C-alpha cells in the first residue's frame, strides 16, 4: 500500500518498491511506494526481491524511465535523478558492538545498561517487527561518557532530600524448614525432616468439595519421577504465615524439599487443561527448575483429583480440584505453625525497598481471567491458599495493585491451565524472577506490581487495559514492564496495555512467549521493546511444564531494556524471522559488561523424549 510522507521519513533508508504499476515518466512520490512494513512477508512469499533496490529517500523526486509493475524494486537503471543516500555505510546487520552503548543509570553500582538488540519477528498481524535493545554492551570506554550524561537529568528529577537513600517499606522473612522424607501415618505431623500426611485425609478432601468425585495422593520421590501423571494443574510451595503476619509481610514458614502438585481430569478422563496438557511421565514433561516448577530432587505431594464430568471447562471444576488439594495443604500448614524454631534451617529476609530519585518502574503482570480454568485467587489468607482469596474474574479483572513482597509471598493462587509451557503456576509468583531482579536492582525504584486479569471479551480487555494505563499514569512511573502468560487471545490485552502505557509517554517493555507459535496476533506502535520468554528449541508451545515461562535471564534482559528505553535509546530494526541466537548474543554482551555470567536455563532437549513429544513436536 502506498505510504504517507511520515512513513516515508521513518523508512527513508528502506528499499523503495513500487506499490502499483507506474508508467514511464512518473516522478516518484511517496504515494507510489509500497509500505516497507510488509516487505518481510512479501519476501517470504517469494513476491519480492529487493536486490539492487534504492532507498526511499534516494528515489523520491526521481523520474521513472520505463513502465514498471507493482512490487518491483526501484533500481538505479530505471530512474533518472536519483539522490545520494544519507544512510551510514554500515550494513543492516552490523555487529552489536558497533551500536552505541547506552549510558548507565545513576547508581553506586558500576553496572552499565546498554544497547545490543534482541530481534523478534512477529509473523502475524500488521507492522509488528520488534526491535529490542538488550543489555549492556561495549567496552568500558564507551560506557563511561554515557554515565555523566545520564546522571544529570535523573538527579535533577529526584527529590533532593531523599535522593539516593533507600527506604525500606516493609520486610518479609522466610523461615525454611527442611523436609527429606514424606510418609503417610495416622496423623499429619513433622518430625525432624520427615513430613507425615494423615492416612484417610483423601476422603475428607473429596467430601469438602461437591464437584470432586475422587482424590488420590501420591508421594513422588526422585526415584519415582518416571511415573505417569495426569496434566499438572499447579505447583505450589507449602507455606504458612507465622502468628498474626499477613501475606506480604512478617514471617512466612516454608517447607524445603517438598512441593504440592495438583493434577487431575474430569470423570470422563478429560485433562483439565486447554491448549495442550502435560500429562505423561513426570520426568519427561516437567522443565526442572523453572520458577514455577519443581526442582530436581524435590518430593512432590501429588494429588490426582477427579472432578465431575464436564466440569473441567467451567470455573467451579478446577477450583474444586484446587480446594480439595488445599484441604491437605492446610492441615500441613497447621502443623507447620507449631514447629519449633530449632528446625529452621535457613532464614532469608526480603526487603521492599523504595529508591527515591531512581527511575520509578512498575511491573504489570497480566494473569488469566477468561473464566473456566483461567482464573486466579488473589490475596488468600495463607500463601497460595484458598481461604480469603478473591478470584480475579469476579473482581472484573481490573488491575489490583500488590506489593512485590505480597507477590513473592504467594498472593496469587494460580488456577490457570493454559498451555503448560507458558503458564505461570503458583510457585512462579513465589519466585518471580523479574520482581526479584527489579527489587534488588539499585538503579531502579520498583513501585509495585499490578496484577490485571485477561478477560474473555475484547471490550472488557480494553476496559481493563484503560485502567492499567490510568494506574500507571497516576503512579507517576518512568517505565513499566508488561508480562503475560499464554499466547494468542491474551496478546490482545497485552498489546492494549502497551498502548495505554506507551501513549502516556511511559516507556514499556513487554515479556511474553512469542517465538514461532506464539507470534503476536496484534501489535501497535508502542510494542517496540519486547523480551521473548521462549526457551523451546523450535519456538513452540511444547507442552512441557513451565518451559517457556519468564526466567532470570529474561528478567535481566527486560530490566536492561527498560533502562535503555527510559534513557531514550532508539530501538533498532528487528530481524525478519525469529532468531534465537540474538538472545544469546545479547546476554553474552550484558554479561561482558556486568562481569556476571548469565547461565541460560535448559530447555526440553535436556529431558528424556516423551512419546507425545516425539509424535507431535519432532
Amino acid at each position, binding site marked *: 500500500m502506498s505510504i504517507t510522507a511520515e512513513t516515508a521519513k521513518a523508512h527513508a533508508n528502506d528499499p523503495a518498491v513500487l*506499490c502499483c*504499476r507506474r508508467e514511464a515518466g512518473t516522478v516518484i512520490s511517496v504515494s507510489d511506494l509500497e509500505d516497507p512494513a510488509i516487505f518481510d512477508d512479501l519476501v517470504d512469499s517469494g*513476491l519480492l526481491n529487493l536486490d539492487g533496490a534504492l532507498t526511499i529517500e534516494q528515489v523520491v523526486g526521481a523520474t521513472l524511465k520505463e513502465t514498471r509493475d507493482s512490487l518491483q524494486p526501484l533500481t538505479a537503471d530505471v530512474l533518472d535523478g536519483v539522490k545520494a543516500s544519507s544512510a551510514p555505510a554500515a550494513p543492516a546487520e552490523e555487529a552489536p558492538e558497533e551500536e552505541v552503548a547506552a549510558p548507565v543509570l545513576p547508581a553506586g553500582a558500576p553496572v552499565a545498561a546498554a544497547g545490543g538488540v534482541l530481534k523478534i519477528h512477529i509473523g502475524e498481524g500488521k507492522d509488528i517487527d520488534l526491535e529490542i535493545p538488550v543489555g549492556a554492551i561495549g567496552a568500558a570506554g564507551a560506557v563511561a561518557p554515557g554515565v555523566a550524561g545520564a546522571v544529570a537529568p535523573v538527579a535533577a528529577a529526584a527529590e533532593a532530600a531523599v535522593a539516593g537513600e533507600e527506604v525500606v517499606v516493609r520486610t518479609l522473612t522466610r523461615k525454611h524448614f527442611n523436609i527429606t522424607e514424606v510418609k503417610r501415618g495416622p496423623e499429619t505431623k513433622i518430625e525432624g525432616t520427615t513430613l507425615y500426611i494423615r492416612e484417610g485425609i483423601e476422603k475428607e478432601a473429596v467430601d469438602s468439595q461437591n464437584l470432586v468425585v475422587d482424590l488420590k495422593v501420591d508421594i513422588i520421590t526422585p526415584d519415582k519421577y518416571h511415573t505417569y501423571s495426569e496434566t499438572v494443574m499447579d505447583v505450589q510451595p507449602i507455606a504458612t504465615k507465622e502468628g498474626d503476619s499477613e501475606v506480604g509481610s512478617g514471617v512466612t514458614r516454608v517447607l524445603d524439599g517438598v512441593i504440592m502438585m495438583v493434577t487431575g481430569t474430569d470423570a470422563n478422563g478429560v485433562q483439565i487443561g486447554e491448549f495442550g496438557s502435560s500429562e505423561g511421565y513426570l520426568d519427561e514433561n516437567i522443565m526442572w527448575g523453572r520458577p514455577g516448577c519443581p526442582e530436581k530432587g524435590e518430593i512432590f505431594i501429588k494429588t490426582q483429583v477427579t472432578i465431575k464430568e464436564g466440569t473441567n471447562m467451567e470455573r467451579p471444576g478446577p477450583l474444586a480440584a484446587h480446594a480439595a488439594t488445599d484441604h491437605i495443604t492446610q492441615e500441613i500448614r497447621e502443623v507447620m505453625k507449631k514447629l519449633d524454631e530449632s528446625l529452621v534451617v535457613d532464614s532469608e529476609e526480603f526487603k521492599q525497598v523504595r529508591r527515591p530519585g531512581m527511575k520509578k518502574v512498575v511491573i504489570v503482570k497480566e494473569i488469566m481471567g477468561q473464566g473456566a480454568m483461567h482464573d486466579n485467587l488473589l490475596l488468600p489468607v495463607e500463601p497460595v491458599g484458598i481461604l480469603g482469596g478473591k478470584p480475579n474474574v469476579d473482581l472484573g479483572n481490573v488491575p489490583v495493585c500488590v506489593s512485590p513482597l505480597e507477590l513473592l509471598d504467594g498472593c496469587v493462587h494460580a488456577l490457570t491451565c493454559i498451555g503448560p509451557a507458558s503458564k505461570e503456576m503458583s510457585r512462579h509468583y513465589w519466585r518471580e524472577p523479574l520482581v526479584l531482579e527489579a527489587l534488588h536492582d539499585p538503579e531502579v525504584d520498583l513501585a509495585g506490581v499490578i496484577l490485571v486479569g485477561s478477560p474473555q471479551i475484547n471490550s472488557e480487555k480494553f476496559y481493563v487495559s484503560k485502567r492499567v494505563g490510568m494506574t500507571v499514569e497516576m503512579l507517576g512511573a518512568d517505565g513499566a514492564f508488561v508480562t503475560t502468560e499464554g499466547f494468542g487471545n491474551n496478546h490482545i490485552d497485552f498489546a492494549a496495555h502497551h498502548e495505554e502505557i506507551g501513549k502516556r509517554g511511559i516507556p514499556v517493555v513487554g515479556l511474553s512467549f512469542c517465538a514461532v507459535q506464539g507470534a503476536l496476533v496484534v501489535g501497535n506502535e508502542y510494542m517496540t521493546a519486547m523480551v521473548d520468554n521462549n526457551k523451546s528449541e523450535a519456538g513452540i508451545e511444547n507442552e512441557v511444564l513451565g518451559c517457556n515461562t519468564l526466567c532470570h535471564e529474561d528478567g535481566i534482559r527486560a530490566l536492561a531494556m527498560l533502562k535503555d528505553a527510559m534513557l531514550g535509546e532508539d530501538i533498532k530494526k528487528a530481524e525478519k524471522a525469529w532468531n534465537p541466537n540474538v538472545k544469546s548474543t545479547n546476554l553474552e554482551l550484558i554479561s561482558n559488561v556486568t562481569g556476571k555470567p548469565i547461565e541460560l536455563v535448559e530447555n526440553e532437549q535436556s529431558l528424556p523424549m516423551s512419546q507425545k513429544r516425539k509424535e507431535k513436536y519432532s
Partner: protein
Amino acid sequence: MGNVQLLLRQHVGAPCAAIVKVGDKVEKGTLIATPTGLGANIHSSVYGEVVEVLEDRIIIKPDEEQPDAFVKIKEGTPLEMIKEAGLVGMGGAGFPTGVKLDTKIPGGAFLVNAAECETGLVHNVRQIEEDFARTLRGLKYAMEITEAAKGIFAIKAKNEKAVAVIREAIKDEPNIFIHLLADIYPSGEERAVIRECLGVTLGVDKLPSAANAAVANVETLLRITEAIEDRKPCFSKNLTVIGHLNDGNKPHVYFDVPVGTSVGELIEKSSGIEEPYGEIILGGPFTGKPTTVDTPITKTTGGIVVTMEFMDLHQAPTGILICACSGNEERMRDVVSKYNGKVCSVTMCKQAVEMKSGALKCEDPGNCPGQAEKVLKMKKDGAEYIVIGNCSDCSNTVMGSAPKMGLKVIHQTDHVMRTIGHAIYRKLRISKQVPQLPNGK
C-alpha cells in the same frame, strides 16, 4: 405492453409524492408525482389508467394505442423547463439536473461524460454517432445556464467513429473541445473525468463546482434539448440490453424506452434469456445490482445484463476486497454466494472512503494505492479464492501478488465479461494515458 411501474424515487433525494389516484386517466407526459424535498418531477411515460398507487411506485395500465404526442411542459426559462421536465442525471447518479445547473460556474468548464466506462453498455456512444446535433445543443444550453466558458467532451479514444462525429461537429465551435480517455475502468467516474480533463483531483466530499466545473452525461444533454426545444418531460430512457440472450451476446440498444417498462419486457424484446443463466444485473457490470424481470427501469437505468452461470467454488474459503469502484460489501458477498464460495476474509481498499450515505467513494479513481497488504491479509485469513471488484489499475496490482501467493482471483465482473466476450479484468496492458487531439479538436 405490460403495466408500467413508475418508482417514486428515481433520483438522488427524497421520494416524490404521487398526485394521481387509482382510476385516473393519464397521458404521456402527465405529471403524476412531485418532489417532497430534493428531487424531480415524475411524468407518466404512457397513455393509460392508474391501477395502483403504492408507497414506492405508481402502476399504470397502458392503453392499446400509444400516440407519439405527449403533454408538453409549460414554457419558461431554460432552467425552469429543465426543472419542470423532471430531468435527472441519466448516467446513473440521478442528481436532479435542475439543481445541478442552478450552480453557476462562470468561466468554468462544462464536462460531458461520454466515457461510457461500464463495459458492455454502448447506448451513449451510439447516441453520439446517431443523434449528435441535439446532444451538442444540449451542451450549449447547459453552458449558457451555468455561464461556463468552455465545454469538453470526455470520451474514450477507442470510439473512433463517435470521436470523428464530435470533431466534425465542433470544428468551428470556439469553446468546445474533446478530451480523450484511455480504455480503462473507471474513466467515467465523475471525479476521474474532472481529474483527466482539468488536472484537479477533488476530495471525495467535493462537488464538481469546487473545481469550477460541472459534469453531465451525454444523454442528459439530449434530454435538456428535448425539454427546452420540444417542451418534453423526462419520461424516456436510452439503454443497452446485453448478455446471455437467445440471439447471442451482442448489445441491443434502445432509444426512448418509456420509463417504468419492466426488465423482463426489454429482455423479451431482445430475444429472451438463453437458459440456463446466472443473474440479471440492472445497470453495468461494475456498479449494477442484481435484479428480477419484474423490476421497472428508471430515469437512471443504463443497462440490463444477463449473465452466464456462475462457476461453483464448492464452498472454498474466499476473501473479498471491497472498493468504491464496484459492488459494496453486500454485493460482493452476494457474488461470492452465487459462486458458492464462503467468505473468510473481508478487506477494503485503503482509498475507499465511506460517505454519510453509506456509499463508498474512491479518493483517486483509477489510480491504485497498492493492494499487497490486503492480499496478504486475505491469504493469512485462509482464502483460496479472492473476489475483487477493483478498477483496471488496482486489478493489475492485485494480479502482481495474489497469483504468486497461490490465490485464485475472480473479478466481480468476470461472469459478465465472459458472457459478452470481453477480456476479464486482470493485468493492465495499456497505458492509462492516451495522446490528445491537437488543441482538443
